[in-house]
């Protein structure tokens, strides 16, 4: 087996048994990136020197016979909206094209302490707004399974890099499916973490009541390893909490799992429906009791999401003003701004791409005088009903099983001109973010060469049992 194909667990054992050094492992990935990433375009920035110096430190640790944390020496990549000190962080946007982060995000601080090796920053839809990575200001990323197709988004660079063995694992971020959907499109594992489970300090904010960082990995076991390393309360993010839930060993025969009927909607690709239903059958065959459940407000989830999210976006992105950092027209050679208002208007006009401006406009409209109650407040109330649907379902069942995406990875360019058709790709993932739940995307089969993902949704903070069920499924699905 090639070094780049190893899981975290396998690479850790190899390092520990000194079958290869951390430097050799890192170099194997760096070589693979220079060989393959010209075609896939998953990286925006490579941090070769940082990676090699981190690997050397780990090798020193090994040579001194020190205890080796499981992530020590393991090469990883992260989405370019998570800050790494002294490394460029663009969020896929021209407005931050030359922005250098001055501090580490909490998740990066935690990973660095455990000896992680950072290979670079991955491509994404601008400010995480999109479902295909085509909204990157720099270039689109391609799906490693079919280079004419999108890898999903917005964490498309991270998912493609893991799928193409250009890193051992990656971090992505979710606001409405941006880890699960690209993981599903690229045939890898992606976790949307419970709202509050992982610190967002150092994650460039998109919609603060929804945003979460999550791992993208080759196996469920790896997702657990990364989640355990990055989760927990952080004094620098007041929405992060330490939540203790009982841990237990799942017994399939004692499990009750719901299949929400609203998730097998008209318009879902019949091949996807077939594969997901086969996956559910395999789980049922273990002795798990499967029930049809109803989440009646599902049909309003996308509308609710596309009201709540842009409203928060319009507030969060006000900070990019051409004044403090990032792209500014005051830097042009010819003086172009007559007054302060000009600086704002033109810097933001030129710095932001189409989708970002569209969402800022939509959010500003929804929050403006006279519309707040009709749009934003109404959406927040429907959000309550969506969350209550899940609360009720979880009184009866332990997990929910659904597809991740209603469509297969689509062709590059196919949806980009029609914003609404792009939004519809999120229809099976956004409810989980609105309700703050954890959910795992796991490969469950392929249509031709295109991967299909199964979504397992759990109760808040029950990530551990999600991993257990995920691992059981991986075993029976081999």
């Amino acid at each position, binding site marked *: 087996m090639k070094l780049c194909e190893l899981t975290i667990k396998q690479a850790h054992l190899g390092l520990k048994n000194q079958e290869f050094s951390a430097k050799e492992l890192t170099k194997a990935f760096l070589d693979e990136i220079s060989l393959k990433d010209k075609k896939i375009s998953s990286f925006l920035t490579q941090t070769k020197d940082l990676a090699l110096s981190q690997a050397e430190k780990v090798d020193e640790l090994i040579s001194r016979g020190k205890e080796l944390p499981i992530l020590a020496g393991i090469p990883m990549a992260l989405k370019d909206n998570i800050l790494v000190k002294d490394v460029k962080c663009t969020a896929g946007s021209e407005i931050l094209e030359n922005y*250098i982060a*001055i501090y580490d995000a909490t998740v990066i601080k935690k990973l660095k302490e455990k000896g992680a090796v950072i290979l670079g920053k991955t491509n994404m839809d601008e400010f995480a707004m999109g479902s295909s990575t085509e909204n990157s200001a720099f270039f689109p990323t391609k799906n490693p399974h079919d280079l004419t197709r999108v890898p999903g988004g917005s964490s498309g660079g991270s998912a493609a890099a893991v799928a193409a063995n250009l890193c051992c694992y990656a971090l992505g971020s979710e606001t409405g499916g941006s880890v699960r959907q690209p993981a599903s499109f690229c045939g890898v594992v992606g976790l949307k973490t419970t*709202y*509050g489970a992982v610190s967002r300090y150092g994650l460039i904010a998109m919609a*603060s*009541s929804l945003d979460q960082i999550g791992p993208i990995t080759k196996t469920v076991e790896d997702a657990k390893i990364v989640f355990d390393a990055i989760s927990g309360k952080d*004094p620098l993010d*007041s*929405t992060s*909490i330490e939540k203790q839930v009982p841990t237990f060993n799942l017994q399939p025969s004692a499990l009750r799992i719901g299949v929400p009927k609203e998730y097998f909607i008209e318009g879902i690709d019949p091949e996807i429906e077939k594969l997901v239903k086969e996956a559910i059958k395999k789980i049922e065959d273990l002795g798990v009791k499967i029930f049809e459940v109803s989440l009646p*407000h599902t*049909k*309003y989830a*996308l*509308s609710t999401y*596309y*009201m709540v999210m842009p409203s928060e976006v*319009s507030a969060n992105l*006000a900070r990019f*003003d*051409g*004044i*403090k*950092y*990032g792209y500014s027209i*005051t*830097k042009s050679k010819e003086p172009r*701004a007559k007054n*302060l*208002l*000009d*600086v*704002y*208007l*033109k810097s*933001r*006009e*030129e710095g*932001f791409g189409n989708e970002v*401006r*569209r969402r800022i*406009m*939509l959010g*500003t*409209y929804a929050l403006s005088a006279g519309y707040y109650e009709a749009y934003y*407040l*109404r*959406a*927040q*109330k*429907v*959000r*309550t*009903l969506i*969350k209550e649907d899940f609360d009720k379902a979880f009184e009866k069942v332990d997990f929910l099983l659904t597809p991740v995406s209603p469509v297969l990875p689509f062709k590059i360019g196919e949806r980009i001109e029609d*914003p*609404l058709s792009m*939004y519809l790709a999120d229809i099976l993932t956004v409810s989980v973010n*609105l309700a*703050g739940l954890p959910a795992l995307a796991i490969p469950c089969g392929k249509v031709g060469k295109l991967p299909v993902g199964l979504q397992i949704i759990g109760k808040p903070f029950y990530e551990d049992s999600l991993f257990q069920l995920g691992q059981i499924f991986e075993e029976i699905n081999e």
Partner: protein
Amino acid sequence: MISKEEVKHIAKLARLGLTEPEIEKFQRELSSILDYIEKLKEVDIKNVEPTSHTLKIENVFREDVAKKLDIEKVKKLIKAFPERENTFLKVKSIFRR
């Protein structure tokens, strides 16, 4: 359908410059998204509390103490200013002379 004037008004509130063809483009696109969102009007929301986020926490306090800033960080922050004089952030004047 939202009007051109509304689009211009929102753009100004959002501090976004728009070109004339973009105004029409946004008018069309925002209208079609807003039409889709109209769906929410079907839902009975009487006596429903709004959810702003899903955690049952509020008023997270910390001690109100001044923390010493890392001078290297400050230098980097200043270096990122688009326009400056010495260590000051420079902006366009907002008062008439």
